[in-house]
């Protein structure tokens, strides 16, 4: 059966359709073409024509035109719409015109850069010109580095390497900096939160050095579909950026099926598992010979589903090999082989984590199954975009898990289909991040009186501070670096906390093995001594946590339980930035807080039954974090209406609801915000619900939440009202065991009053 036939037969199957909440058909879209823009080097066009490209899609031509006109651009493109052409054409054209011209390509991961470079190589080889493209990252051998620095026309790297390997040694890269014409940054939607805030500062440093060497590079940025590509691009680069989103790539018809597994216990709100249901749908596609990609949220789920599908295909001819898993942790060569197999059609089904969500070229598949909601609309669309050929029909199944956010999506398909994807938020002026990069910048090139740092606020304050700390010396109008440190080594771009803990497997005494890393804020929760730590489906027990040396030593175990640490969070107020009154004498405020977390004990919980087997103590120091928070203070008159326990249950229910709603409307990952309540808050002395940025300094999520506080409460109320459960369930306010029998009702009353 092909996709059209399969869709028809499913629609006629009442058993299946019973669980389909919504069947959306997205119509086919024809291609829109445009001729090659004027101004491209004449040597390029014949090469493209030989490769079968006789004209460009409208957005490609538009992008190239704008770039050639000297503008910075951000191109928003869905998967497989030929975005690399948008930057490769102007870059190659510029180098053909002037062999001294240089370009810098930044990709978020090494795998992506390898993939994009191979495409570039093909074009260059076909032209038979001497344009040198080199990858410069941690894997580049020492001997090759000199050649890259001297002769690379196009240097492909990642933000981390730019930050610690290139900028602090800029004098070795004179050729690049003097002649830098284009800076290409792909997949900019991944640069949100801390990573994005760091990258924005790395770019401030880069532009400072370019100015020193007298070059004025242009930016060419690419993003997947998000709500605010232009804003993101402008925040990252500090420039006015032209938005190009007139996608001209063709797309065949697409079915989007929202599938909610049947309820098996209505009172407790328990549904059939997402994994067996996904197994069934993916298996059906596979049996019909439809090439399918399945996305799962965890590495473990990937492995489990891969095994199920392989078993389904297993036969003496070795057809189980037509089903493959794909995730981080596989060797690069193995990953390349799977990617090739997908492109060549030798692989019928692949089960992947979000590792295949980014722009790695695997061709287009016929069907996609999302096993659970990936967390954001943007990545759901990215994943769904893996199915969808330019011609012919494709189909996407979203199989909801029982997680609250999945249930929200599946019961509000319109939210998903109509709402624009998330905003990517970042805050380059986060004081902690800014100061770290400011030090790097001062190391790289002395600041002079009156110098700015991109559009960062108050550079003279930072300079004064660093002078006072004896890190800089101000003399004769310049600030000179006056320390032995190498400041770039103190920052990790992917998390605000600079020191990561390494996780060391000591199962084999002769061969200790580093298996992972974790940022220091998460360590007390997951790596305290005696914690059960899960990695690639294997259980480990933490034997020793060396807090000072930032190391956790773990050993493989096989236990029937997992652990859950009890985190005590206390907040103290540092500063109120703004506040507004809400009805009945309540208020909503925004400010800076100190969050102190302390893990004191953990529970051992049996797998499957989830019963508590026992407790253990944890002895760890407190962790402090300064961040931005916003909070709602409940009016006295309203609180007075409830018994204290009832009020508590209601507030807990509200925090559970906000935890679902906030990531959806703040366009962030669930772990980026924290929500908690305090019956007598030290901040306000009253019952208070608090939402804060879960990273030092904050990236602006609390600010954004403050601006949409009423909307958040409305959406929370909507979920709890729409939910069919009677007294609360895991999909809305929380299970009865947690919020009591009165929690849901109290939350509804409180929310209604708060938004009145």
């Amino acid at each position, binding site marked *: 059966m092909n996709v059209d036939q399969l869709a028809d037969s499913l629609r006629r199957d009442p058993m299946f359709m019973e669980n389909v909440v919504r069947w959306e058909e997205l119509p086919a879209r024809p291609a829109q073409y445009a001729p090659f823009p004027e101004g491209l080097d004449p040597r390029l066009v014949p090469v493209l024509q030989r490769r079968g490209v006789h004209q460009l899609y409208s957005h490609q031509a538009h992008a190239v035109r704008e770039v050639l006109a000297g503008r910075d651009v951000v191109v928003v493109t869905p998967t497989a719409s030929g975005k690399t052409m948008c930057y490769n054409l102007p870059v190659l054209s510029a180098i053909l015109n002037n062999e001294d011209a240089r370009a810098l390509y930044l990709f978020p991961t090494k795998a992506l850069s390898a993939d994009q470079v191979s495409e570039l190589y093909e074009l260059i080889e076909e032209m038979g010109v001497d344009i040198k493209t080199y990858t410069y990252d941690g894997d580049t051998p020492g001997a090759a580095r000199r050649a890259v620095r001297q002769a690379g026309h196009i240097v492909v790297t990642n933000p981390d390497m730019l930050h610690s390997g290139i900028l602090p040694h800029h004098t070795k890269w004179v050729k690049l900096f003097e002649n830098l014409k284009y800076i290409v940054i792909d997949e900019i939607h991944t640069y949100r939160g801390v990573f994005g805030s760091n990258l924005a500062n790395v770019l401030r440093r880069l532009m400072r050095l370019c100015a020193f060497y007298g070059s004025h590079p242009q930016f060419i940025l690419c993003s997947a579909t998000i709500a605010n590509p232009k804003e993101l691009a402008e925040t990252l680069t500090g420039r006015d950026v032209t938005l190009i989103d007139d996608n001209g790539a063709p797309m065949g018809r697409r079915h989007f099926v929202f599938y909610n597994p049947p309820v098996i216990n209505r009172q407790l709100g328990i549904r059939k598992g997402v994994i067996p249901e996904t197994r069934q749908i993916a298996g059906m596609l596979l049996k019909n010979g439809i090439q399918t990609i399945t996305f799962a949220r965890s590495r473990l789920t990937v492995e489990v589903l891969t095994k199920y599908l392989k078993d389904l295909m297993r036969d003496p001819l070795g057809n189980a090999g037509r089903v493959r898993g794909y995730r981080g942790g596989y060797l690069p060569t193995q990953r390349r082989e799977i990617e090739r197999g997908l492109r060549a059609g030798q692989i019928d089904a692949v089960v992947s984590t979000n590792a295949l969500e980014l722009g790695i070229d695997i061709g287009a598949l016929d069907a996609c199954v999302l096993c659970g909601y990936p967390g954001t609309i943007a990545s759901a669309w990215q994943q769904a975009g893996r199915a969808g050929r330019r011609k012919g029909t494709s189909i996407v199944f979203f199989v909801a898990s029982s997680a609250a956010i999945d249930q929200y999506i599946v019961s509000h398909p319109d939210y998903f289909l109509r709402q624009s994807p998330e905003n990517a938020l970042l805050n380059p002026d986060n004081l902690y991040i800014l100061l770290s990069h400011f030090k790097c910048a*001062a190391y790289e090139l002395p600041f002079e009186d009156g110098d700015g740092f991109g559009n960062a606020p108050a550079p003279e304050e930072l300079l004064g501070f660093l002078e006072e700390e004896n890190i800089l010396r101000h003399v004769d109008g310049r600030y000179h670096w006056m320390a032995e440190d190498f400041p770039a080594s103190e920052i990790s771009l992917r998390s605000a906390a600079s020191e990561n803990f390494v996780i060391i497997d000591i199962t084999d005494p002769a061969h200790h093995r580093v298996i992972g890393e974790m940022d220091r804020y998460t360590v007390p929760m997951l790596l305290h001594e005696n914690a059960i730590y899960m990695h690639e489906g294997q259980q480990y027990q933490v034997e020793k946590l060396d807090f000072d040396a930032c190391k956790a030593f773990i050993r493989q175990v096989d236990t029937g339980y997992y652990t859950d640490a009890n985190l005590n969070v206390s907040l103290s107020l540092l500063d109120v930035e703004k506040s507004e009154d809400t009805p009945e004498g309540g208020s909503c405020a925004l400010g800076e807080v100190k969050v102190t977390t302390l893990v004191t004990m953990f529970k051992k919980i049996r797998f499957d039954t989830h019963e508590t087997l026992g407790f253990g103590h944890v002895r760890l120091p407190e962790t402090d974090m300064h961040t931005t928070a916003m909070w709602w203070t409940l009016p006295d008159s309203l609180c007075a209406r409830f018994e204290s326990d009832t009020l508590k249950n209601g507030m807990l229910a509200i925090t559970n609801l906000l935890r679902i709603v906030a990531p959806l409307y703040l366009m962030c990952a669930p772990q980026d915000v924290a929500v908690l309540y305090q019956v007598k808050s030290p901040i306000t002395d009253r019952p208070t619900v608090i939402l804060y940025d879960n990273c030092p300094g904050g990236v602006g999520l609390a600010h954004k939440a403050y601006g949409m506080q009423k909307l958040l409460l409305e959406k929370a109320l909507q979920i709890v009202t729409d939910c069919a459960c009677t007294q609360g369930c895991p999909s809305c306010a929380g299970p009865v065991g947690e919020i009591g029998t009165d929690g849901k009702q109290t939350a509804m009353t409180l929310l209604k009053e708060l938004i009145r």
Partner: protein
Amino acid sequence: MNLRDKLRAVDGGSKRHQQPQRQYTSCWQRRETRPMEDFPRVLEVRGETVMLMQGEEMPEDFDPRRILYLDTETTGFAGAGTVAFLVGVGSFAEDGFTVRQYLMRDYPEERFLLRALEEELAQFDVICSFNGRSFDVPLLRDRFLMNRMNPDCLDKPHIDLLHMARRVWKLRLKQCSLGRLEEAVLGIAREGDIPGAQVPQRFFDYLKTGQFDLLRDVIDHNAQDIASLCVLLSRMARMYEHPEEALHTEDVYAMGVALDRMRHPEEARRCYRLAMGGSLRTQSQLRLAVSYRRGGDRRQAKEIWQAMAMRREGGATPYIELAKHYEHVEKDIPAALEMTRRAMMLLSEPTLFDSTAVQEERNAVQYRYDRLKSRLKEQ
């Protein structure tokens, strides 16, 4: 206090430190001349010898008077934020060895320091340093660039004593820092010398306090380094020219290995022959034989192996080498087989404590034996 409060407490740093505007017109300089007697034979260093040592071309009109000895003191390891705050150079004048030192008393003086260095370099043909190729010169090049000055003056033939010294003395001394070489090779003992690791902090402390005395140690340390460079070069050159004068046969042997690698077989063999009188007798003979074999002198090589075998030196190795010789050069399979058999006897009686290397050697010999035997049958 959190970071924001600290920042607030700082009221516009630039305004606070309104020091009286100083005019910066030059850097600090010191010039001292050391008597010629302290530098015996240093003017005898010949260009050909340096080429032997370094394996690189030197100017045709090489003249020890036109070498500029160079050493810097810096604020840290390589990177754009590290500066060379003190640059010392040395060379010969009529009245002795003069050391000129240029120090920036504050950052704005750096350009004067660099300009002085540029003028110094213009007057000489060759730079001589200790690890300057990898450290001092690239760092100075960065400083020229950061000050928008042309770094081309640094492009000169460069004698880097670190690598040469390692080739000669690593075997005996294990560690080859300049300080260790002064002590063990030049017989110079420094007193109250400042450890290199403390130098950056000294400079920062000086900047903060303005007490110039903090730098005295650093300046003296630097001057001594430069004088030592000069003595070390001539000592090393003398050793290459007269290996028979060397006190340690290990050094002579190491020199032979270095010369071999630089493709100077005649000079290398001379060293091996001298080293045969010492603790490295066996290695020296084996090296010597290999050197002859490579040079095509099979007869000489064979004689050495035979002599070693006769004196029971070198274990199985001479026999194995002889076996190869008989098989490949003289095509005498029975003789080759006999040599292999003797090698096997020497390697026989395996013990539990054999290293894998010995086991591998034994396997290789066994394999050779079997192969030769089957060849013999074929004939």
